[in-house]
């Protein structure tokens, strides 16, 4: 689902957020826009790739991958 500050409302679809990027209208999908990506590593990687192809600058894309790791006690 997608929500924009310009055009609020929820499309209410479930699924991969990467597919939802194409429906965004609230921010320009081009260089000059920042992106913050967070979730499972596969989703984050796919979103980063899609946004790079749209022209976002590599230094304007920030991400956190929720990986599993056993930390020492």
């Amino acid at each position, binding site marked *: 689902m997608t929500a*924009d*500050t310009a055009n609020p409302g929820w499309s209410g679809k479930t*699924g991969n957020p990467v597919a*939802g*990027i194409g429906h965004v209208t609230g921010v*320009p999908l081009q260089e000059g826009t920042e992106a*913050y990506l967070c979730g499972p590593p596969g989703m984050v990687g796919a979103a980063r790739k899609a*946004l790079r192809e749209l022209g976002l600058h590599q230094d304007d894309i920030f991400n*956190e991958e929720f990986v599993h790791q056993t*930390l020492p006690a």
Partner: protein
Amino acid sequence: MMDGISITFADGEVMSFAPTPGGSVLTSAEQAGNALAHSCREGTCRTCVARRPNGDEVLLCVEPAQSGFEAVVPYRRADVSPPTLRRANINSFQKLSRSVWEIRYRLQFPLPFLPGQFVEATFPGIDGPRRFSMANGPAEAEQILHVRDIPGGAMADYLATRAKPQDAFTVRGPFGIFYLRANPKPKLFVAGGTGLAPIIAMLRGIDRLSSPPLSLVLGFADEQDAYGIDQLKVLANDYRSRS
């Protein structure tokens, strides 16, 4: 220091130090009394990511220290605070959807963080710390975590069978370079599942900034996993009425 290691921060500040024989870039910086962002120190969490002049990404915690090494990190030096340990007590906890728990808690002493950062939390009877991102704004007294319910996971077991309000636990932090950058650039947020937690913290922390246009794309595996929508609607209305 031509033959040392040189790290450039996002605002152009340069830090130079000598390589420690047999050490990583991260440990060399620390030996010289310098802080760089890190968490796992073993190449999994990507908190220590940096970019070489040729464009390659490297993880400074596992990158062997060598003279002449140069890289750029995506944060400012002032945005790295040394992690500290805090005692915490659960206020309340509940299921927000089929697969998401919310834990609300209070800290014995405040733990400043940048919206988007995470802590290493150690709950009673669990073998070791787990990483969770704060979902509250940095100025709020009550802290909030969104914890994915992983069947067979230690957190799911704790929350479903043993947890009680007032339970004591510890958090160590803040960690992370995934925090809101204070600038007027339009911002797109993309979250999957509990990946929403740090993004809610950012949305709650954004009012001090210059009201950039924002969009959010959110995905869940299934409708029954979805959570946070009502809160996001309130945040969006708030934001629109201010900007």
